[in-house]
């Protein structure tokens, strides 16, 4: 068969059931991405005879004799298509994984479709941006600044990877051709709780193309946690690469390694497994009761708090005397709030390549936020010297902390070590839902009291966190949940109890916000309710009760010693939202809909506890240009832009003169990882320190070399100016080289002390009293990010956080049935916010400058998410009079709430 792809003819025979997407990738067109492989996300969009189609749904044979255009063929003779340029000008992407499909779709729209983008773009999902930047790109707005040498920090410079992203050349994890690649597929447990008696591999091994079948007998016996933390002991060692006990539907039973994915799948179907089925428990409160099935019958070495009660962790703390506090209260609200199980839905599914190199070293190219911690743990689990393991990533297609886990790397390493072959594992979208991680579902009971003076007298919170079948992140998520959402309030009496509990369900893990979205949803609605009872404006009530600079931050524990007020902008954020909501702008409500406003706040410590390390190396090269390595990963967070901005500011350099590579354990040093919003504050600080050290080194050497006073020397664009004379950097390098001096510097940070950042969200909504539909008329978020290193990027992070949180607030829920099975493991049954679903959010920044972060910056990745659901709940309460206690706030649930409160509205 002959295929014409991007104007070039190919001859080839696709497999009978092959789709066009994989056929194009086999031909080397890696710009064609897999987001869902089911036609729902649009990441694989290509043009077939000029028409946009989802290539994952097109039988490859039907492309015979037709013209196929992929993102790689959109630019004509190296001139970008106007839509590619538009996405660069407006920076209409973050991680960039959906971008090729977005551009390929947008490039075909006629003017009628461009007039209705909400409909025209409904077939393309972006999980990062919240669509505003994409809207601006299609509308032709330019958001980027071109900064001069030395003008780094504070400017909206574009992401360095932009040109590669919009042309499909940016390499994500699996966008490499590997000779002799073998494929791994996992057989997954159909039972929520079972013990494997036997696995008969013979039929699977007989399948043509099957190389190996790996079971618990082949896997290391060393237990670990998929959660990766700087201090590994905070997570229980309750997981094996392959186990004999199945603890949730979807757990890996065995791995089949084969020459093709098809053979590996067939091998999985041919495995005969004899299960002893065990009683299962799905509800965390039942799981804590005496007599419940014990999910992890393990000893103290596993560091599970109480295996017999299925308790991973518990927390009890507070201050004062809540009973006395409630006795003084004039208004008390008590309510139980539920936050469901939701999925990150990063568009690049979990995936990795593993191979043994000529030196016998295990190499893992993975979609990870934590290459260094994964390297360390793989070495531990497989009993290898850390020097014998390399873990790295290039561009990662979204993470949202789902990739602060070691889920696929262990099995990839096992397969590579056992077979000696280069191997690949790539989760399907279904596997993402049934066998990766989710947010911890929580049941949060809160009781809040306040006096007539509008001062809080007591806060009581009781949290039950469902950690699923494994305890990864169970304790630290619970700790975080019981921390900032309460410690942001100054109140003499607090009592907090929290439990993280195993159940036979898909494991929960790290997810943007890390426990705070769940408890904020409860606390911020309870605060709103108490303010209402007292007749005080909710923002004014918060002003009276939030901690002020210097006050102690008390949650379950008094805040750890190393959290300080590096800056304080909460007061400004409250005022900014107050003013914005009073402005009266935004969309008008449709006739007959009820309107209301609501607000909520969030505080976050700028760095996770327990130490967070980062190393940057930066040096001057022979060509007079700089090069740097950092450990932190780029997955749309924009930190690779920020690092260069910091370095250009310190070194008075042009961004283009700084070569930048990242997230590779081979660079040496250590990096805890790109989680906990640390890419700017921790890794960026390391970069600042490294750049400052190099600057000093350059100036010292230039002064000595030129025989001038050090204070007459300054860095300029491509040169050191010494006493008015410019020494080109290339010449300086040469001179240093002959003097035996290496102009290379290093910066390191340890993540302590930490500061606090704040976000306040406001919504005005309209609710259709008949249908329960919600329309957001206005959305505003004020953020205290300290110095905003890149205003465009920081705004985009906040917009993306609001959008992702709105998904959770309005649509998303991984539904598990009474057998422990996920009911809706696909995007068509798990609705992610689409273009039409997300309003524009006005983003406002407080004017603060932090004493700790680089150039005064603070973290701003997770926290924009945290106040959103509660603010929306408060607005709906205001509009309808009904307090909703459970997400998502879908029209059918809103309708049910209205019926329960008011009787059946007129049909």
């Amino acid at each position: 068969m002959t295929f014409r792809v991007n104007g070039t003819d190919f001859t080839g025979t696709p497999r009978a059931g092959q789709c066009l997407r994989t056929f194009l990738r086999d031909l080397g067109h890696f710009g064609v991405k897999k987001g869902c492989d089911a036609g729902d996300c649009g990441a694989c969009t290509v043009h077939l005879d000029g028409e946009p189609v989802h290539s994952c749904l097109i039988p490859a044979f039907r492309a015979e004799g037709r013209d196929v255009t992929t993102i790689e063929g959109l630019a004509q003779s190296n001139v970008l298509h106007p839509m590619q340029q538009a996405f660069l000008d407006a920076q209409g992407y973050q991680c960039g994984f959906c971008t090729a499909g977005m551009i390929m779709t947008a490039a075909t729209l006629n003017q009628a479709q461009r007039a209705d983008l909400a409909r025209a773009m409904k077939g393309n999902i972006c999980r990062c941006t919240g669509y505003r930047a994409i809207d601006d790109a299609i509308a032709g707005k330019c958001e980027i600044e071109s900064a001069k040498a030395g003008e780094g920090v504070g400017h909206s410079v574009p992401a360095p990877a932009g040109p590669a992203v919009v042309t499909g050349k940016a390499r994500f994890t699996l966008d490499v051709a590997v000779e002799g690649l073998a494929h791994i597929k996992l057989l997954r447990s159909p039972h929520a709780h079972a013990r494997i008696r036997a696995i008969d591999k013979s039929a699977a091994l007989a399948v043509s193309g099957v190389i190996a079948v790996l079971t618990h007998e082949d896997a290391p016996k060393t237990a670990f946690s998929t959660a990766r933390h700087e201090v590994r002991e905070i997570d229980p060692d309750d997981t094996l690469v392959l186990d004999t006990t199945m603890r949730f539907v979807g757990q890996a039973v065995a791995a089949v390694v084969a020459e093709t994915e098809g053979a590996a799948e067939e091998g999985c179907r041919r495995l005969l497994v004899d299960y002893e089925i065990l009683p299962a428990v799905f509800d965390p409160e039942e799981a804590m009761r005496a007599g419940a099935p014990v999910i992890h019958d393990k000893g103290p070495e596993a560091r599970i708090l109480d295996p017999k009660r299925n308790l991973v962790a518990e927390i009890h703390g507070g201050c004062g005397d809540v009973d006395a506090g409630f006795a003084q209260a004039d208004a008390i609200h008590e309510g139980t709030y539920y936050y469901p199980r939701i999925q990150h839905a990063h568009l690049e599914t979990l995936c990795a390549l593993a191979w043994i190199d000529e030196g016998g070293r295990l190499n893992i190219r993975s979609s990870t936020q934590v290459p260094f911690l994964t390297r360390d743990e793989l070495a531990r689990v497989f009993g290898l010297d850390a020097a014998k393991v390399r873990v790295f990533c290039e561009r990662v297609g979204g993470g949202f902390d789902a990739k602060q886990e070691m889920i696929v790397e262990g099995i990839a390493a096992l397969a590579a070590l056992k077979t000696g072959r280069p191997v690949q594992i790539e989760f399907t979208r279904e596997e993402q839902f049934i066998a990766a991680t989710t947010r911890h579902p929580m049941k949060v009971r809160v009781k809040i009291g306040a006096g007539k003076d509008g001062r809080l007298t007591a806060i009581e919170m009781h949290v039950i966190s469902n950690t699923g079948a494994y305890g990864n992140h169970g304790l630290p998520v619970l700790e975080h949940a019981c921390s900032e959402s309460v410690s942001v309030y100054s109140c003499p009496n607090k009592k907090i109890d929290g439990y993280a509990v195993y159940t036979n369900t898909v494991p929960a893990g790290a997810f943007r916000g890390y426990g705070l979205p769940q408890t904020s949803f409860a606390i911020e609605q309870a605060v709103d309710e108490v303010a209402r009872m007292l007749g005080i404006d909710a923002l004014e009530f918060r002003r009276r009760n939030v901690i002020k600079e210097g006050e102690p931050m008390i949650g379950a524990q008094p805040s750890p010693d190393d959290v300080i007020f590096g800056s304080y902008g909460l007061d400004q954020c409250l005022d900014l939202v107050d003013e914005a909501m009073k402005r009266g702008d935004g969309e008008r409500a449709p006739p007959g809909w009820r309107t209301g406003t609501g607000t909520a706040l969030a505080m976050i410590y700028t760095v996770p506890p327990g130490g967070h390390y980062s190393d940057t190396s930066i040096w001057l090269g022979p060509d007079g240009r700089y090069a740097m390595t950092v450990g932190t990963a780029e997955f749309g967070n924009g930190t690779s832009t920020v690092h260069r901005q910091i370095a250009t500011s310190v070194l008075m350099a042009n961004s283009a003169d700084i070569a930048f590579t990242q997230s590779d354990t081979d660079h040496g040093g250590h990096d805890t990882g790109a989680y906990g919003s640390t890419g700017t504050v921790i890794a960026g600080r390391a970069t600042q320190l490294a750049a400052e050290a190099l600057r000093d080194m350059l100036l010292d050497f230039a002064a000595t070399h030129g025989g001038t006073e050090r204070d007459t020397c300054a860095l300029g664009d491509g040169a050191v100016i010494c006493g008015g004379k410019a020494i080109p950097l290339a010449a300086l390098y040469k001179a240093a080289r002959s003097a035996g001096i290496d102009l290379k510097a290093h910066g390191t940070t340890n993540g302590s002390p930490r500061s606090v950042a704040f976000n306040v969200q406001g919504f005005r909504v309209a609710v259709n009293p008949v249908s329960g539909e919600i329309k957001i008329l206005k959305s505003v978020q004020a953020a205290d990010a300290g110095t905003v290193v890149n205003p465009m990027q920081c705004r985009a992070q906040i917009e993306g956080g609001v959008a992702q949180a709105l998904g959770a607030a309005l649509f998303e829920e991984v539904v598990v049935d009474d057998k422990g099975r996920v009911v809706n493991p696909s995007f068509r049954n798990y609705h992610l916010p689409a273009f039409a679903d997300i309003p524009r959010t006005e983003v406002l920044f407080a004017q603060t400058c932090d004493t700790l972060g680089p150039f005064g910056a603070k973290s701003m990745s997770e926290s924009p998410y945290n106040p959103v659901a509660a603010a929306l709940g408060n607005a709906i309460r205001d509009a309808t009079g009904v307090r909703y206690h459970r997400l998502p706030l879908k029209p059918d649930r809103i309708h049910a709430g209205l019926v329960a409160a008011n009787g059946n509205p007129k049909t």
Partner: protein
Amino acid sequence: MDLNTITEIARPTARNALPAWRESDAFLGGGTWLFSEPQPELTRLIDLSTLGWQPLQATADGLEIGATCTVAQLDAFNAPATWIAAPLINQCCRAFLASFKIWNTATVGGNVCMSLPAGPMISLTAALDGTAVLWAQDGTERRVPIADFVTGPQRNGLKPGELMRAIMLPSTALTRRAAFRQISLATYGRSGALVIGTLASDGAFALTVTAATPRPMQFTFDALPSAHALQSRIDEEIGAAGWYDDVHGLPAWRRHMTLHFAKEICDELSGAAR
């Protein structure tokens, strides 16, 4: 996605070249559903696109929609001015969860044969008194009203090896006045209730409920009923347990919206009828 168990594609160019049906066969229309989920039980696809069926044929009798007509082709159809119900075509195309890109590939027959409660081509063709033309393996043909063809979620009247050749929409239905209502849990999400009313020049009224129920439900009257009478009949015939329940809408909400839409449709069609 790749369907790795498929080893053979049959591409017949005429009815008599259709291969003998095997249990592990599937007819390939656009492929937008087949290729969206694993199909490990299938080994052969029989491509219908090579049969060369005319997508659309408008005659005085009505509209014949070839089963392989794509949604995009149907959406682009320019109806005669007397077919005043024709805007339903475009309204129903817009009720797809899928975007216009999928319309380029997905077929009308495929959507009907998928028989999902929210299949908007079922809504359209059931409301317009469509008849399915079915080809059996033995070379015979039979006709079944669409409203009866779909019997439940992913269930229909197709026998093994039987395929859908076309859907006939009679001009008597296309010349009726029509009113359309649809709602989903997200802005342009999968339909939770899709209700279409039609009013003939002789006063006959039909209401077709889809998405809210496991299969299409049709309520016909000789004359436009009162909203109350219509709602009572819907409630009576569908029954408390007859409303569809899945993640796309709670049954109580689907019922409530269906009854609400039924009243709106009555109002709309009675108002301008005077």
